[in-house]
């Protein structure tokens, strides 16, 4: 357990696999830098692995002032216990005031283990992070400059802001795709602080026998335009309309959970609370009602076109272009208009 300290840095756990840094860590680093400058402290990244010097360099370019580096062959593969042990040692030694993790499968496996060992608070799956004050209603005491950990709760029906003020570090996992990627600056300089690693085989209680990596069928996060279809398409055959419109826009095809569950398209395409979070320049929602869990994954899109035959569909509350009509008529008209453009 570490004490409340106002000089502590803002840290990001930098997730890497085979020496390749995950995008989510860079996204968070961007926001961590903003939080740190509000607090007037440094921003740092904790990097654990084998042969990860390159990742360390990259993190400096993306904004890290300090890198806490633990390099060891036994850290080559992610394992909960070994990573938690080293990260806890680092936290105890350097006393950061904030530690952020990606809400990736690894982040969500590691962070609770670290939080439990450090007896610290942890908020899962944040969609926003800010610095702000909190008044304790009972004592009237005001806690200044806390990490406001903002996340949807109750199936997306509410947005809760969580804080912790009496036990540090303040920790959160952050959803992928909700924070914009910062731009790199290759001239940036930072400091690398090496952390000695002492691990034994008892720190690695799991044996990884086999591993299978699946290529993602679609990269929704980097697509500038997304055409997403919902249950309103009616069948897998009719979902072709979404593919066709996406093809002529150079867009990635997305879907609601209902469309995925109905077998219209593969789960890799699911957008929303339990799918991918996206923020494209243009989002075309076809036959999608706009349930709160779907909106959670796409409402940061710059422009939204909604096609739905039901004028009361909630998707229209967030659409910039509202087309009330039958998608079987409207989508072919859109394809025609795009193909005929000058």
């Amino acid at each position, binding site marked *: 357990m570490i004490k409340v300290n106002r000089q502590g840095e803002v840290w990001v756990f930098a997730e890497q696999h085979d020496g390749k840094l995950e995008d989510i860590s860079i996204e968070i680093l961007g926001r961590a830098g903003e939080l740190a400058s509000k607090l007037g402290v440094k921003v740092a990244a904790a990097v654990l692995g084998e042969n990860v010097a390159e990742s360390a360099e990259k993190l400096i370019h993306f904004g890290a002032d300090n890198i806490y580096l633990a390099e060891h062959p036994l850290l080559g593969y992610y394992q*909960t216990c070994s990573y938690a042990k080293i990260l806890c040692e680092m936290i105890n030694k350097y006393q950061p005031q904030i530690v952020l993790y990606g809400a990736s499968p690894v982040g969500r496996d590691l962070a*609770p283990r670290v939080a439990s060992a450090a007896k610290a608070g942890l908020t899962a799956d944040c969609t926003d992070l800010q610095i702000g004050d909190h008044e304790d209603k009972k004592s009237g005491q005001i806690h200044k400059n806390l990490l406001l950990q903002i996340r949807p709760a109750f*199936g997306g029906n509410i947005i809760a802001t969580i804080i912790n003020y009496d036990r540090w570090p303040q920790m959160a996992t952050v959803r992928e795709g909700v924070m914009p990627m910062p731009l790199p600056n290759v001239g940036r300089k930072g400091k690398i602080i090496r952390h000695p690693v002492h691990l034994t085989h008892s720190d690695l209680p799991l044996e990884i026998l086999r*591993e299978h990596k*699946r290529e993602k069928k679609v990269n929704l996060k980097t697509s500038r335009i997304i055409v997403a279809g919902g249950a309103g398409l009616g069948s897998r055959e009719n979902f072709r309309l979404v593919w066709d419109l996406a093809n002529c826009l150079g867009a990635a095809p997305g879907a609601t959970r209902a469309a995925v569950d109905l077998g219209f398209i593969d789960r890799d395409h699911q957008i929303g609370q339990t799918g991918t979070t996206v923020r494209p320049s*243009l989002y075309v929602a076809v036959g999608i009602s706009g349930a709160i869990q779907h909106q959670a994954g796409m409402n940061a899109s710059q*422009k939204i076109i909604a096609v739905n035959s039901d004028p009361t569909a909630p998707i229209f509350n967030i*659409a910039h*272009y509202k087309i009330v009509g039958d998608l079987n008529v409207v989508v072919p008209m859109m394809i025609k208009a795009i193909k005929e453009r000058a």
Partner: protein
Amino acid sequence: MAYNCVVLIKQVPDTKRITGEAMNADGTVNRAALPAIFNPEDLNALELAIQIKEKFGGTVTAITMGLPAAAKILRESLYRGADDAILLTDKRAAASDTLATSYILSCAIKKLKYDILLCGRQAIDGDTAQVGPQTAEKLGIPQITYVEQLIELNNQTIIVRRNTGAGWQEVKAQLPVLLTVMDDANEPRVGNAKRLMKYKDVLAPAEITPDSGIDIKELEKKGLLIKQWSLDDIGADLNWCGRDGSPTKVHRIQSVVLTAKESKTVEPNQAGITNMIHELIIDKTIS
């Protein structure tokens, strides 16, 4: 080789069916206003435990921390195949966050014999997926998260397949171990009619009011009393329980209202749509 499985189960509000009104002013949930259900992935954890018992022998104990009403999911566990059920209920445990919850659960689990602990991957009220890993840490045992298949269990060694998000891994561990189980792992069975008849009158002491005319001793003799433990019974240190034991606090709750800044209604005809596409080309949204 028989295995003792302990399954952590939680009663949760059915978040699929709530509207914004179910929140109290202080940001906590008005659970009374919502239908309470067995957390879906905890059913997958229970199913896996029952399958282990059927194949290898041993016992299945379901344990939940919650209000007296949570005894309902313990009864459901007995209908499905659990041998024993424990209700952890204590007013001083209220407002526990995941850290305090895992501390309390770990104190209770320390009183039990276990080889395999099973949790759902996450609970649908908070979607945190934290209680499992935190409980494992408190007990000093390894965790295997996102389990989608049991491959082998042999002589205190377990092999499972876990979902890594980008594919899968097969991992091996020595027992004891904690697993968090995904919904893909199995199809949970429904209660069995014979077991339902056997356990339908099971109650937890906290559910029995003095004027109900039910004799607790009598129930216990018939094996129809759910074990009920307080924080004192499990020797929990109150500093780590409830509100005081919870580092995270609610700062603010907002209901979700999302609206676009400007919006245009487009006529669903070719002229309207062509116009819209033109606009998007001009402002360079479409290239």
